């Protein structure tokens, strides 16, 4: 028996480790994005996000000033401290720091230890002490102060600048509002239409009901791609064109099969007694639907609403086709995929922040409504 118990414990550890690895694999990429959105461009380029909580060596460039030049015994000398240079002051607010290494050119940035003396490429010598004070000597006067490249220990720092840029300066605020404008009507309208149809398919008897349900199941899998060209042409010919109205209609149409299917599956499961009892009492179908079915179906309505909201919020394809491409009506996904990735392809901080802003709302919806989402998934798939 001991043996079996031991084995179980071993298994338990193994299970824990496997799950931990999986969870980390699933979580780390998102954390990377989240952390990166709080780092500025230089930090992102210089060290991985996983180093951000630690004090690390970062690369900097300071410029000495020829105004500080003095002549001592025929030698021209510039003295100063790299940490007081305005271009690095942002990272060293006290004007103090510790030099890890330095060099006279960007390529030799870590060639010299503090206290050593380096030959400058244009003649003269450069000495940088650990506390950042430097001394440049040359037998000719300097036209302009030479640049000093150095590595310094930098404490962790996070910034909200990316958010400021993304939210207020980059048109992302507009895209955010556009996304909301697309998502909310496109969520509410199909629910209503689908609820009536689902009730008819679940509780009313009429010829061809089975066929209609089969048709809905079939339409559930029709690829969106098929609809793009014919519908855009249709919209153009009836004067809707590429517009918000067009995308609402499109999302309504594309969301309906799932809505009808989910709601019907749920409504069929409601107790027959209640509905028949109401009918005996003289309630009409319309009254039964409004007074009994709708309130009882709230969980299913909520779960479809979550699906549809996530889907319309996250959608790129429908927005690219049915909305005009100008920045006035861009939604966030289009803005990120077409605008930011193109023009700011190298600015990872801005990209990360924009992505996180677009992800934030679905995540909030997701974590607050997870219960309904799971219920909806189960109703939609397992029957």
């Amino acid at each position, binding site marked *: 028996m001991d043996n079996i118990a031991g084995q179980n414990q071993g298994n338990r550890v193994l299970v824990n480790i496997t799950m931990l690895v999986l969870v980390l694999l699933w979580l780390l990429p998102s954390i990377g994005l989240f952390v990166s959105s709080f780092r500025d461009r230089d930090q992102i380029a210089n060290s991985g996000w996983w180093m951000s909580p630690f004090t690390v060596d970062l690369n900097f460039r300071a410029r000495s000033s020829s105004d500080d030049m003095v002549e001592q015994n025929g030698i021209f000398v510039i003295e100063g401290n790299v940490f007081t240079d305005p271009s690095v002051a942002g990272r060293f607010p006290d004007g103090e720091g510790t030099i890890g290494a330095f060099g006279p050119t960007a390529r030799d940035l870590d060639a010299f230890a503090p206290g050593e003396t380096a030959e400058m490429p244009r003649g003269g010598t450069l000495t940088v002490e650990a506390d950042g004070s430097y001394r440049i000597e040359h037998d000719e006067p300097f036209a302009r102060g030479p640049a000093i490249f150095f590595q310094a220990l930098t404490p962790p720092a996070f910034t909200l600048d990316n958010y400021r840029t993304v939210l207020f300066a980059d048109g992302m605020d507009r895209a955010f*509002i556009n996304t909301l404008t697309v998502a909310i009507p496109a969520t509410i309208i199909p629910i209503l239409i689908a609820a009536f149809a689902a009730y008819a398919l679940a509780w009313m008897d009429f010829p061809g009901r089975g066929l209609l349900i089969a048709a809905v199941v079939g339409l559930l*899998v029709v690829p969106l791609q098929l609809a793009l060209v014919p519908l855009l042409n249709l919209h153009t010919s009836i004067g809707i064109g590429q517009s918000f109205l067009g995308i609402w209609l499109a999302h309504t149409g594309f969301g309906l099969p799932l809505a009808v299917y989910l709601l019907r599956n749920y409504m069929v499961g409601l107790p027959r007694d209640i509905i028949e009892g109401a009918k005996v009492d003289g309630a009409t179908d319309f009254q039964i639907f409004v007074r009994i079915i709708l309130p009882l179906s709230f969980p299913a309505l909520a779960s479809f609403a979550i699906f549809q909201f996530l889907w319309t919020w996250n959608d790129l*394809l429908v927005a690219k086709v049915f909305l005009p491409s100008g920045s006035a009506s861009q939604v966030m*996904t289009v803005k990120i995929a077409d605008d930011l990735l193109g023009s700011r392809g190298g600015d990872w901080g801005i990209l990360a922040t924009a992505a996180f802003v677009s*992800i934030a709302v679905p995540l909030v919806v997701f974590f607050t409504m997870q219960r309904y989402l799971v219920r909806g*998934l189960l109703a939609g798939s397992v029957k």
Partner: protein
Amino acid sequence: MPPVIQGIITIIVGVGGCVGYFYASNWVLDKVIFPAKGPNTGRNINRANQVRPWLFLFPAMFALGLYLAYPVVGSFVRSLFDRSGDNFIGLGNYIDLFSESTFRTAVRNNLLWVLVVPAMATFIGLVVAQLSDRLSWGNIAKSLIFMPMAISFVGASLIWRFVYAPDADLGIINSIRDSMGLAVLDPLQVRFWNNFFLMFILVWIQTGFAMVILSAALRGIPEETIEAAIIDGANAFQVFFKIKVPQIMGTIVVVWTTITILVLKVFDIVYTMTGGNFGTHILPSYMMTYMFRDDGRATAVAFVIMILVLPVMIWNIRQARKEMR
């Protein structure tokens, strides 16, 4: 008019219109066309009840017909015409497509996606569902693995661009390679295998879906079957693969087909990650290269996707009909 106000008006008009339509049409049916009074009361009530389902169904059927059923036919017809839409060229677009090497690559990649993504997502989902049931922190683990479901494909692509970034100070993969002394490489430019790196993004998103459904199915398995197997001396693996998996096979197939359908729709990942370069096009992304430029070609590609979906569609309808009986 700003779109926000337009949106609010649309909500009011839309919701009001729907409610108004249903209420008014029922009222007209009951009071005007077939009033429940006079000499034909009984017959009128019966007739009204025969018409009513169609009143309830009409808006949904109209929208479904216009937005999903009509495009199947419309796209096919359009794909038989040339770029301008005036000249009938039969299967010309399809023939041209199949002679393009990019299209053939896209078809091959798409088949790979259809094979790999559902298999991996279902398998990992199943493993997580099984393992997390036995953990004290299982629910938290499930929540975290489920989370990518809420993230857009574009957002997920950006997240993974960071992971794959060809820079040891940016991408975690290259950072690990760097610490092992390997040269930096761009995973997205490694021919053929880059497809799998893209697929993994979708697996990452969809595993949570598989996990949630399979976890519910696993809980539904009768305890007795498992106890009996344990008494007969089955070990954990045997219980899992020989007792549990066969009992939830139906659910596994449903999850598998659902993810398969999704795979055939997703163009966002390829579009944001590589734009189809380096041999990574799949049919949906390939279609977008023709969208707005050549409707004939675009619809032809879309119809090829439809043909790929068809087996799943037929199977789904059959399942649904079986359940109704």
